[in-house]
């Protein structure tokens, strides 16, 4: 009797196991907890939406794609282990991570196994290490910062600046790029304030910047720190222009900082508020699906999914090494490949080029002040 019951149970269990619907596996290693959760959740949702649309349109090479998710916990060592786990699980490409301090560590694992990796990180060091398998989904700060500095000098007439930055791999990259550009432009940095990752109290930092004679402050933190910084700046009544990159003026920052975000300005590689129909439509679909406004990280994730589809189909098979080779020197035009939303190119290091925007936050929305050409 017991044997019969057990065998029946075994048959039921065997029938209950879901068949392997997808043959192509993608590893989504991303910050779903810890300080990077705001950015990571956006990136993850962008990736998910991209692959869901791809699957709805027949998948890649007529095969459905399965996205395997791994939480890096915003911890470099965990992210490394998760990349290893994803590769062990049989993925042929990886999306993530967003935090540079994680990406510099985990990309070595993907490199070792020859797996192409689409990162949302923007630290210059990522593409400077000669890794043939790393590809950006937004250009690095060494490309974004010169565009922004040019705008600050030529359009805003800034003569002296202060800098507030996160003392992390991400922050160091942006800080070094900014300092180098300021030296080139002959503009002195009169106050330089580093802050720790996930710092909560910015009163002393803002005070130092406020009491300096800087004409403008360059702020380079991740989203949650930026929101806390902006709230404190508003509390102390700082009247200098606060200028940053995408992480100062992103939608998550605007949501967290509220009115304190108004007046902040900066350079963004991608913005849902750019007047680009494909981008606007993607943002609307995202809002309907997830019930929140995506930031640049969601757009990065979304374009990473579509880029992988296009390149895999160009290669003709999910051959990880061939895909990486194909991506070097590749240009995808949005007119032919609508999923990339804007024309985009990758160079031999995996660095990308694309048009970008200088925006100002007004009434809780990014308002594009200027479109900056690719460099």
């Amino acid at each position, binding site marked *: 009797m017991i044997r019969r019951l057990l065998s029946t149970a075994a048959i039921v269990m065997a029938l209950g196991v879901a068949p392997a619907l997808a043959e192509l596996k993608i590893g989504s290693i991303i910050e*779903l907890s810890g300080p990077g959760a705001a950015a990571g959740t956006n990136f993850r949702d962008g990736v998910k939406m991209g692959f869901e649309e791809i699957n709805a349109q027949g998948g890649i090479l007529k095969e459905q794609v399965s996205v395997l998710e791994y939480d890096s916990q915003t911890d470099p060592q965990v992210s490394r282990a998760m990349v290893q786990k994803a590769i062990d699980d049989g993925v042929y490409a990886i999306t993530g991570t967003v935090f540079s301090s994680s990406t510099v560590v985990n990309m070595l694992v993907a490199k070792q196994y020859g797996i192409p990796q689409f990162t949302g990180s923007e630290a210059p060091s990522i593409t400077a290490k000669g890794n043939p398998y790393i590809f950006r989904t937004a250009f690095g700060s060494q490309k974004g910062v010169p565009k922004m500095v040019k705008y600050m000098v030529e359009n805003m007439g800034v003569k002296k600046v202060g800098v507030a930055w996160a003392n992390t791999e991400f922050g160091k990259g942006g800080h070094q790029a900014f300092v180098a550009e300021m030296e080139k432009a002959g503009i002195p940095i009169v106050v330089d304030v*580093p802050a720790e990752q996930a710092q909560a109290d910015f009163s002393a930092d803002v005070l130092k910047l406020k009491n300096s004679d800087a004409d403008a402050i360059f702020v380079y933190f991740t989203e*949650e720190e930026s929101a806390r910084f902006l709230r404190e700046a*508003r509390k102390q009544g700082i009247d200098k222009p606060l200028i940053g990159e995408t992480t100062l003026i992103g939608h998550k920052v605007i949501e967290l900082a509220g009115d304190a975000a108004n007046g902040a300005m900066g350079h963004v590689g991608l913005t849902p508020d750019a007047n680009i129909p494909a981008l606007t439509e993607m943002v609307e679909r995202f809002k309907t699906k997830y019930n929140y406004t995506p930031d640049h990280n969601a757009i990065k994730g979304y374009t990473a999914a579509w880029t992988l589809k296009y390149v895999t189909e160009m290669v003709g098979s999910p051959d990880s090494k061939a895909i990486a080779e194909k991506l070097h020197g590749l240009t995808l035009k949005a007119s032919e490949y609508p999923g990339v939303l804007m024309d985009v190119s990758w160079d031999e290091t995996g660095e990308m080029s694309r048009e970008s925007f200088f925006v100002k936050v007004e009434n809780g929305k990014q308002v594009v002040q200027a479109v900056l050409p690719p460099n």
Partner: protein
Amino acid sequence: MAELIQILVSGLAAGSIYALAAVGFTLLWQASQTINFAQGEFVMLPAFFVLIGMTVLGLPMWTSILLALVLSLLILGVAFKRLIVEPMLPHGTLPLVIATIALGLLLKESVKEFYGATAQPFPAIFPQTVYNVAGASVSVQDICNLVVSMLAIGGLQLFLNRTRTGRCMQASAQNPAVAEILGVNVKRMVLYTFLINAALATIASVLISPIYLAKFSNGETLGLVAFIAAIVGGFNQIRGALVGGLLIGVIDNLSAVYISAQYRSAMPLLLLIAIILLRPQGLLGTPEGRTV
């Protein structure tokens, strides 16, 4: 001078909130020899009760704060005492400490699971107006945070020293056996202590969340700072926890401005080491005294 005024105001405002959490450590230690390592999470959680009230139930902010207070009293006060402290206490301090660490993890991960891992905007309960005082920009929010915290701690002191219930609580803390013989309901007094701790945690949560933003991991920082403040000030004195909290807040800001922003988080730890080496009972603590 203006800079110093601003540093002091900001430091005292932040420090007064740390003090609220630190007082919780001393209260529970006095009442039941409990070192509550979930104290940081106790401060983190009420902010999410407020957000649930506002966003899920659609209640006004002050009603949501009231709801958060009631939920905190029930969960962080009554349930914490009945379900964790009372069953674990007979097994000694160490199992209880481990239980509170586990509780902290449970609260943190539960908020992450049910509310999300990203920070949430939290409404400011005081006006965002900034006044110029002798060249320093002093915000109404900072002043209000300082005043509310001081009133809460001052009120607690008055309650403990000037009311019959407060004195009964002190008696229960000093010598439970004698207090019981004298007719004091010791169990009820201990419960009051847990309820007061929950109320203080709610106040701290509502005051600090507009600055920190509501996030599941806020308790890590707050719990550590409050624990250091309680040790620095004196673990067995409320006024010690108050002094410790204010001192940490001011030292943190002073060191960030005048020493090094990069090493600011090391300063409270250096202070902690110095206090442990030179005055283990804390600045205002007493080596053997046990008063609430």
